[in-house]
């Protein structure tokens, strides 16, 4: 049994405990952690640091199989002057804001509808999880086919009920293509957040809702004034997570629109992907990826803070 921790400074007793342990026990924790640290170092820290190094180098695979020289911050400076990069950042925001908002709203609406444990609700929840269980790349390819103006099911429906509008080349219209991308993203992610919200709703203390009902509050008022404030920590975490997911979304852009029509759906992850793996400009793509990574790391830190905070 471990010795009881004394009160006072938290680090001093811990250090004292360490010193009290036999030498082999003192190093045991590091030995136990070593495999995990090695895996993290090999798969996370090394690639991350290596890409940071690449971002300061001039390296195009079309010119050379190895980095050609130190470029300092030239890649970053070029990025901030690159209208394509700035345009792509704008497209990423245009995608992220509605996709996060709609996913959270739709997921919450579904959670409220399906929170009870009746047979209908349980079956509906099971069915609704299917989109989330599908591979994102497969989702993109499937939707591209479904939105095909000639053979797709969407146009078949339009042709049946609104023949004057058919064919609808949705993915070749800049606004509709972005709307389709957002809709598919919401379709994909809303079930996941629905399950999160159902869990949160189940954890709400029932007496506060009961008390409000006794006081004559309507369902809408109970939701906005009683439930929502209590759900806020979970909502915040969900919004942060979904923002990260939206910022890094690549699969559907590659498989559905390839950033088009024009550059209407050319998000930053897609631009990083094409710059690195189509144009082979590894240095420039690494700089781009790092700018995106910094934003994501900020969000991840906020997320961690909220998760740690709410678990205390």
């Amino acid at each position, binding site marked *: 049994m471990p010795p009881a921790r004394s009160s006072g400074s938290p680090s001093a007793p811990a250090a004292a405990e360490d010193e009290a342990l036999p030498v082999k026990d003192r190093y045991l924790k590091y030995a136990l952690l070593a495999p995990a640290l090695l895996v993290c170092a090999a798969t996370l820290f090394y690639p991350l640091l290596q890409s940071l190094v690449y971002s300061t180098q*001039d390296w195009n695979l079309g010119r050379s*199989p190895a980095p050609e020289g130190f470029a300092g911050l*030239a890649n970053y400076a070029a990025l901030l002057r690159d209208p394509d990069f700035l345009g792509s950042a704008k497209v990423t925001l245009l995608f992220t804001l509605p996709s996060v908002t709609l996913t959270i709203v739709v997921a919450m609406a579904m959670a409220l509808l399906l929170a009870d444990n009746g047979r209908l609700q349980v079956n509906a929840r099971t069915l609704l999880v299917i989109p989330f269980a599908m591979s994102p790349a497969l989702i993109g390819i499937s939707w591209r086919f479904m939105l095909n103006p000639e053979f797709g099911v969407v146009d078949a429906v339009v042709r049946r009920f609104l023949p004057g509008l058919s*064919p609808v080349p949705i993915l*070749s219209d800049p606004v509709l293509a972005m709307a389709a991308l957002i809709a598919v993203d919401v379709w994909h992610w809303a079930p996941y957040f629905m399950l999160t919200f159902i869990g949160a709703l189940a954890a709400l203390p029932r007496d506060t809702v009961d008390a409000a009902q006794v006081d004559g509050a309507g369902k809408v008022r109970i939701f906005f004034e009683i439930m929502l404030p209590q759900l806020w920590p979970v909502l915040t975490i969900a919004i942060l997570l979904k923002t990260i997911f939206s910022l890094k979304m690549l699969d559907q852009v590659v498989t559905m629109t390839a950033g088009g*029509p*024009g550059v209407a759906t050319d998000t930053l992850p897609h631009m990083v992907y094409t710059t690195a793996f189509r144009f082979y400009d590894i240095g420039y793509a690494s700089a781009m990826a790092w700018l995106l990574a910094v934003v994501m790391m900020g969000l991840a830190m906020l997320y961690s803070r909220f998760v740690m905070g709410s678990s205390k």
Partner: protein
Amino acid sequence: MAGASALPAFAQTTLPYALKANKPHAGKTLNVLLPPASQFRAQEKRLAEFEMLSGIKVVYSYVPYGQLLDKITTEAVAGNGAYDVIAYQDSWLAALSGYFEPIDTVVKADALDLARYPKVFSAASIYEGKNYGLPVRAHPQLFFYRKDLYAQAGATVPRTWQEMIASAKLVQEKTGVPGVAMDYVKGSGFQNLWLWFNCLWGHGSDLLDAAGKPRFNDAAGVLATQAYVDVLVKHKVANPGSTQFNEYDMVNSMAQGASASMMVWWWTYSVLTGARSKLKAEQVGFAPMVRFEDGRSPTVAVIMPFGISKQSRQKEAAWEFMKWVTNPDLEVAIVTDKSDPATADIVATHIATLADEKVNQANFGLPAVALKSLDGARGLPKLVVWPQVASVLETAISEMVSNGKPVKATLDDAARQVERITQRAGGRRG
């Protein structure tokens, strides 16, 4: 085993195809990286012949076409020489030339006559004066049309772009089937640029001028691009789905009876007449690719040469294989063998094969028509920054067709982007 029957005729000292006698590389194994194609499967079936002649074993490794460039680049960066012979597309050569071995010396030593290929094919593997391969797979453009719909409408098979528009209009009016399928969408390997190049070259413009500056936005380039988008925008003879079609969708549209014609690579004939097509072979007509300038402008060809990897540790053995795999006898044997659908193919690269009567009989006369299409054909530009430039151009086409952006302004903007790309191609050091 296919191809083995001819072997006893080969004497060891006078081997065919300039192969070295006495099997100096016997026991070696060559690895070949290439995309899946029935032509390559057919070669694979006949590898025993090469092994018997040279003692060299060859292993084919297939990588889907969409991932081939990534795979070549990854292998080049890894630098482990895992592949000895690699298939690549002509437009990739400028970026990949550093990873391939020039073969000019061995071509000369073995007196290999490159005049056996159409000029556009033999030029495909030449970059900055050096030859980096031999053509093995190549595609000329053809004009495909619905014979039944053209007959019903009383339309004539077009020779020029202008005639194509007129015929498409007539067929569309008389039959209700969209006159032509186009592939304007971006993001499918720059497919929306091939027909644009027909228009561009047909109007006397080009991608870049002699100084390497963008030229496609000059007056002729604007007219050419306008002609390209007008098929849909002004003449309204393109299938309305064309804004969202890639090449696969375009071919499928015609195969499903939803478009009356299209301009595309010759290999699609097998799709149009295949088991999954709604069309019968007698409904599918083909003609040489339509041209501008009363039928004199260049058409486009895409070529896939085989090259020897610079990192190969068996370059001499690889050259022996190159000589065998590009021999015209093997090509004729493959294109006339229709016994197995998995290895039946129409693709040939030698002038003699394309003109061969027996080959044409076995392939519906397609090779002879293809040869006409190849007259004066040009390959895609070879630029180190081709992927970036092509990406800008495919986006510009997409914006003009889908977003209704004006041609001149869009091309000017694209030209500025291309200029930036070519300027920074030298790197960002210093």
